[in-house]
């Protein structure tokens, strides 16, 4: 077997033991890597109903055959676990030197089990694994933790770490790496914290096994250069992901005031042009020639690396239009190890609930200093922070008074920075994202506006969501590479079978990849249905407020318009039918069989009805 190392490392923190295991070629071909590996391991090894923050949960670090090979843009690592925020399957990916080092240490997959009695960090160096005391770094932010570990192991070491948010098990805490990088929105940082695991450090010295090393060396180097040239020619990375902010403001898709509004006259103050003008540095992931980490100085003088999601959720969504203050909130989230999107969603919901009179409090939209204070309280779970640390779904359940309607999440995960009160297909994309409302799996707003009528709920929108889920939520998450060259620069998808085949010696085409994608989407949904025996389609709905006429914009280009519930239901039906899932959104028995999931269907049938 080429392309994969064929090895996984299983580490048990309770017993402080580790074991190198092998996986079969059949497993590799069926699940490929990354999200596929993580999902299958969690499905097989977790008992349904376990406490996500208990020692039974497992933290997975998963790579794929392309990960870590010098080609565009292969520096990503997938982290996964049963989510404490949603109760379902949870994962994320982040740029990290772990990608290269773990592969060079001889592993494609790391499974962390149990719970350490004392705070520890793990040092993996090829065959050697050490459990080391984290007393000196426990309680520290991620920047100080990274510095401490860099001093010991050098900047070339791969490091995953958590901040105080993860230590205190904030339900939307993330895993962090390489200063500005973060992943694992559905509380994967809290899972790491629940295990008393502060960091994972990896150093590898072996060669990654590749079918045709000379060919991939040439293709990879050429293509990295070409991607960089396209970026330079277009100028994409001048504003990076933040270019879209000004456009969202123009087309009424910007999150403003807990997504109550869709645009704002001051949005220009925090847009990509202003960000680029304030830039002091640029950072990127390993093996990237289109670096998007635009870094500016925050209000306190820290370097803060921003992207669109950060600015949308911590800026416009909170009606904070001073870029340095948005950067401060972003820096705090990064240092404390909190997800920036969910943090913006939680604070937005909190301000809104106060506004609506549903809860007492002194936080108002636009109050950056108070927002900073609240983020710190949340990370340490002190005072009101303990309430905020639970995420907007649980907050709304506790507040009651119809606040669930404007708690902006799906399945418990806060919605990313696109306001879909009148963008039906994108609302479907959020609602059917496999980990809760994340933009990473499908984003169809330009398609909806350009190729369809904005107010249509046709089958073509459901098909587009599925097509993109196959590519973004499937392909890039299981071969494990960054989707940006394709998404942002139009780097053709056909390059990826070439990389994959050159690395593995196989002869796959894109259709082979789509079958793996569909298998993974079916099993991700099965994971939810196994955890929630009362599963129904209502869990694939966006928040009620998007259907509420009283919430329609009062002015602007979508004044008076909102999503139509009956038509959304039709759109969801289209989606289910195209996927051959039942009307509850659970894959049908025959569908699972056709995707090679007969055993998994039998297991699911123990907990939920299969049609």
């Amino acid at each position, binding site marked *: 077997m080429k392309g994969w190392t064929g090895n996984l490392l299983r580490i048990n923190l309770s017993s402080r033991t580790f074991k190198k295991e092998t996986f079969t070629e059949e497993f590799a071909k069926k699940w490929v890597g990354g999200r596929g590996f993580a999902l299958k391991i969690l499905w097989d090894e977790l008992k349904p109903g376990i406490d996500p923050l208990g020692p039974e949960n497992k933290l997975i670090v998963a790579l794929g055959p392309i990960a870590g090979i010098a080609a565009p843009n292969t520096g990503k690592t997938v982290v996964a676990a049963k989510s404490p925020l949603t109760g379902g399957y949870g994962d994320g990916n982040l740029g990290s030197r772990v990608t290269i080092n773990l592969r060079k240490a001889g592993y494609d997959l790391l499974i962390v089990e149990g719970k350490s009695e004392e705070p520890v960090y793990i040092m993996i160096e090829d065959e050697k694994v050490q459990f080391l005391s984290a007393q000196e770094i426990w309680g520290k932010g991620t920047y100080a933790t990274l510095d401490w570990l860099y001093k010991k192991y050098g900047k070339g070491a791969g490091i995953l770490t958590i901040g105080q948010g993860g230590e205190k098990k904030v339900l939307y805490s993330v895993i962090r790496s390489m200063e500005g990088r973060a992943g694992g929105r559905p509380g994967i940082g809290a899972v790491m914290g629940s295990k008393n695991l502060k960091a994972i450090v990896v150093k590898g010295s072996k060669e990654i096994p590749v079918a045709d090393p000379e060919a991939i060396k040439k293709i990879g180097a050429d293509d990295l250069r070409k991607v960089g040239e396209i970026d330079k020619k*277009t*100028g*994409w990375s*001048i*504003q990076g*992901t933040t*270019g*879209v902010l*000004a*456009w969202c403001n*123009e*087309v*009424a898709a910007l999150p403003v005031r807990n997504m109550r509004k869709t645009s704002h006259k001051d949005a220009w103050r925090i847009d*990509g*042009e202003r960000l680029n003008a304030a830039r002091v540095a640029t950072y990127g992931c390993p093996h990237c020639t289109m670096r998007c980490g635009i870094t500016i100085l925050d209000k306190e003088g820290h370097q803060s690396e921003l*992207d*669109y*999601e950060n600015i949308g959720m911590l800026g416009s969504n909170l009606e904070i239009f001073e870029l340095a203050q948005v950067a401060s909130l972003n820096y705090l989230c990064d240092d404390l190890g909190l997800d920036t999107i969910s943090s913006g969603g939680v604070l937005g919901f909190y301000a809104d609930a106060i506004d609506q009179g549903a809860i007492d409090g002194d936080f108002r939209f636009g109050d950056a200093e108070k927002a900073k204070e609240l983020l710190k309280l949340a990370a340490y779970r002190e005072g009101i922070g303990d309430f905020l640390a639970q995420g907007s779904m649980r907050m709304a359940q506790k507040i009651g008074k119809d606040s669930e309607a404007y708690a902006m999440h799906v399945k418990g995960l806060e919605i990313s920075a*696109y306001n879909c009160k009148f963008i039906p297909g994108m609302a479907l994309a959020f609602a059917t994202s496999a980990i809760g409302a994340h*933009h990473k799996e499908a*984003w*169809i*707003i*330009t398609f909806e*506006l*350009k190729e369809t009528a*904005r107010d249509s709920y046709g089958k073509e929108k459901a098909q587009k969501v599925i097509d993109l889920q196959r590519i973004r939520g499937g392909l890039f998450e299981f071969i494990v590479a960054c989707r*940006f060259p394709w*998404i*942002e620069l*139009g780097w053709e998808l056909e390059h990826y079978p070439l990389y994959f085949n050159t690395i593995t010696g196989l002869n796959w085409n894109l259709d082979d990849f789509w079958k793996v994608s569909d298998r993974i989407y079916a099993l991700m949904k099965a994971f939810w249905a196994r955890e929630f025996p009362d599963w129904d389609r209502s869990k694939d709905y966006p928040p009620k407020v998007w259907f509420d006429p009283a919430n329609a914009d009062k002015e*602007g*280009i*979508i004044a008076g318009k909102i999503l139509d519930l009956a038509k959304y239901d039709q759109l969801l039906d289209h989606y289910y039918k195209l996927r051959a899932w039942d009307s509850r959104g659970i894959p049908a028995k025959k569908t699972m069989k056709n995707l090679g999931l007969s055993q998994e269907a039998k297991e699911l049938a123990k907990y939920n009805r299969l049609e």
Partner: protein
Amino acid sequence: MKIQVKIIGYLINQTGFSEKELQIPAAITAEELLSMIKIPKEMPKIITRNGNAISPLDKLKEGDRVVIAPLYSGG
């Protein structure tokens, strides 16, 4: 006639401006506007007028707000 033109993201590198009022001949098409402001035809883009997407052949009107953006895919 006068229109307001807003350029988004990296297309600013082509036009050299991000927003301005332009005096243009009456009944000009969106495509002709692109040529006037030096945005290459082959560059993927989405053009909106007053918030709604339009085709390159659509004619512009006095007072339009035309926004020209890269064909974003949502990061």
